[in-house]
């Protein structure tokens, strides 16, 4: 047991560059597999949380844009959603990486007042930024379509009441349209969040290199499967971690769902029921 604790301190943060540098090569123990694959989960969580966070706001903008009557607004939003929903994420990764590689290598100084940050274009070829951008665009497109559908389903009486109370512009959107849109979209959006976490596993199988063997959970799992020639241990471990993560997401999104529904009479409140039957992706 103490040796497993030692493994945890050695490899617990290996995926982000702390601890032992060399990966285990021979006599790989179950503990090492558990710890390293768990360490890789840091990347999956990093990608998914940031992509979902930024994507949430961009998706709202896309949904409003697609709903706009102005052609100049709705055409680009429609095109964006179509391109990212209509092509495989796997190809998007390759395409984006190869585009980023072609960019000239530049450094742009950005003065933050207290320190100067040099933003370099070569960061785009690294997974932490390049893959994050692809995932951000991808989830924005999918969530944008979900939000658009919900926006179209906001009851017209709600909008009429808002007008009757003299709500206009930003206030009407923030107080009336947005909460209802989110409430209607939430079950599908939860599904999208689960899929986003799953999609992060693709990152290190595409062009983006795992620099110094700092990879995600599935990167280490396939490393172990190659080394031990035994797929029956590492892949179920990844499965275990992801089931855990999925349950946590459902729990968290369920709490938010309760918040979104709390103004409704109790008999109309909907418990978060993940729609198993109509997959959204």
């Amino acid at each position: 047991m103490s040796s497993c604790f030692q493994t945890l301190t050695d490899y617990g943060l290996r995926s982000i560059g702390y601890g032992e540098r060399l990966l285990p090569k021979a006599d790989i123990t179950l503990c090492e597999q558990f710890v390293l694959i768990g360490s890789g989960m840091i990347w999956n969580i990093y990608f998914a949380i940031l992509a979902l966070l930024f994507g949430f706001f961009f998706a709202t903008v896309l949904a409003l844009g697609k709903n706009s009557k102005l052609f100049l607004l709705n055409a680009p939003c429609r095109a964006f959603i179509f391109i990212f929903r209509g092509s495989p994420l796997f190809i998007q990764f390759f395409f984006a990486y190869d585009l980023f590689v072609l960019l000239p290598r530049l450094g742009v100084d950005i003065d933050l007042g207290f320190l100067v940050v040099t933003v370099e274009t070569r960061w785009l070829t690294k997974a932490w930024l390049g893959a994050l951008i692809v995932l951000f665009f991808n989830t924005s497109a999918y969530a944008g379509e979900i939000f658009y559908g919900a926006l179209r389903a906001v009851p017209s009486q709600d909008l009429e009441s808002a007008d009757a109370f003299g709500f206009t512009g930003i206030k009407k959107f923030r107080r009336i349209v947005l909460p209802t849109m989110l409430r209607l979209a939430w079950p599908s959006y939860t599904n999208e969040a689960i899929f986003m976490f799953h999609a992060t596993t693709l990152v290190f199988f595409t062009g983006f290199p795992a620099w110094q063997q700092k990879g995600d959970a599935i990167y280490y799992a396939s490393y172990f499967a190659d080394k031990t020639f035994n797929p029956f241990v590492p892949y179920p471990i990844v499965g275990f971690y992801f089931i855990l993560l999925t349950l946590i997401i459902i729990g968290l999104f369920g709490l938010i769902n309760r918040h979104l529904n709390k103004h409704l009479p109790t008999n109309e409140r909907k418990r978060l029921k993940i729609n198993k039957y109509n997959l959204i992706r």
Partner: protein
Amino acid sequence: MFSYCVDPKTLEGLMWLSCYVTTAKHMSFYYSFFVVMGLLSLAAPLAMAFGFAGATAARSSLKIVRAFGKGYLAMIRGIPDIVFFLFIPIALDQAFEYLRHKVLCSDVTEAVRQGNDFVVCAAAKLPLNTASEWVHDIYGFSLALLAFGFVFGAFAGNVLSGAMAAVPKAQIETGEAYGFSSSQIFRRILIPQMWIYALPGLSNLWMILIKATPLLFLLGIEDIVYWAKELGGIKTGVYEYPHPDWRAWYFGVLMIFYLSLTYFSQSFLDKLSARLSKGQATMAGKTV
């Protein structure tokens, strides 16, 4: 391909391009698009079969079969599909070889799993070392196909079991009132009536399946992704057709291929849905 392509060094402009895009390797690239289409057309019915079995098992009256079916359907929602794509082909390969080893080489007493090695006797290898290359290709493709069938079967199973649950109870009860047995109700009422409820989910699934086909690359198949990487990479002067890094162009072509595939599928499925909704007691059917 063309007669003037004998010496590429002397060519320029469009003539160079016309020779470049008709090299033998490019022909393999074009052929691999058919591999993708082949996978799609085989994986879809296979996934339906797996899904049908899963959905039926999840409704079974036997507790153990039901648990098995529900577990199969639920699993795919918690675990990323790529885990299955990596796991299933190698696991199946080892399972087949292990079984063949037990049957064909029963005289060998050494353990199959020795440390980090998986050792089976030569006769149990799949495919045999002496087999020609196309056998290896077919075997690899079949394993990939099974992985696709398994994963998308679980998705399809979810859709079908939802559709079965959505068939109005009154229709089932009508069957019972006419003295149908439970298997007759299943065959004569449940299955024919569930399709319209399953269609939105299945359409979606088809789109997901299209978008999952590039994952073939991960399974070691020489598919369009493989050839795009291979052909697009920098070619120095030692190659017949030198060019800079063109991978972005090649993947751009793949993007367009997939976008048109999903676009045409979507418009076809929309039409199909409108047609099947006619006369059904649903909102879409009533508006017709």
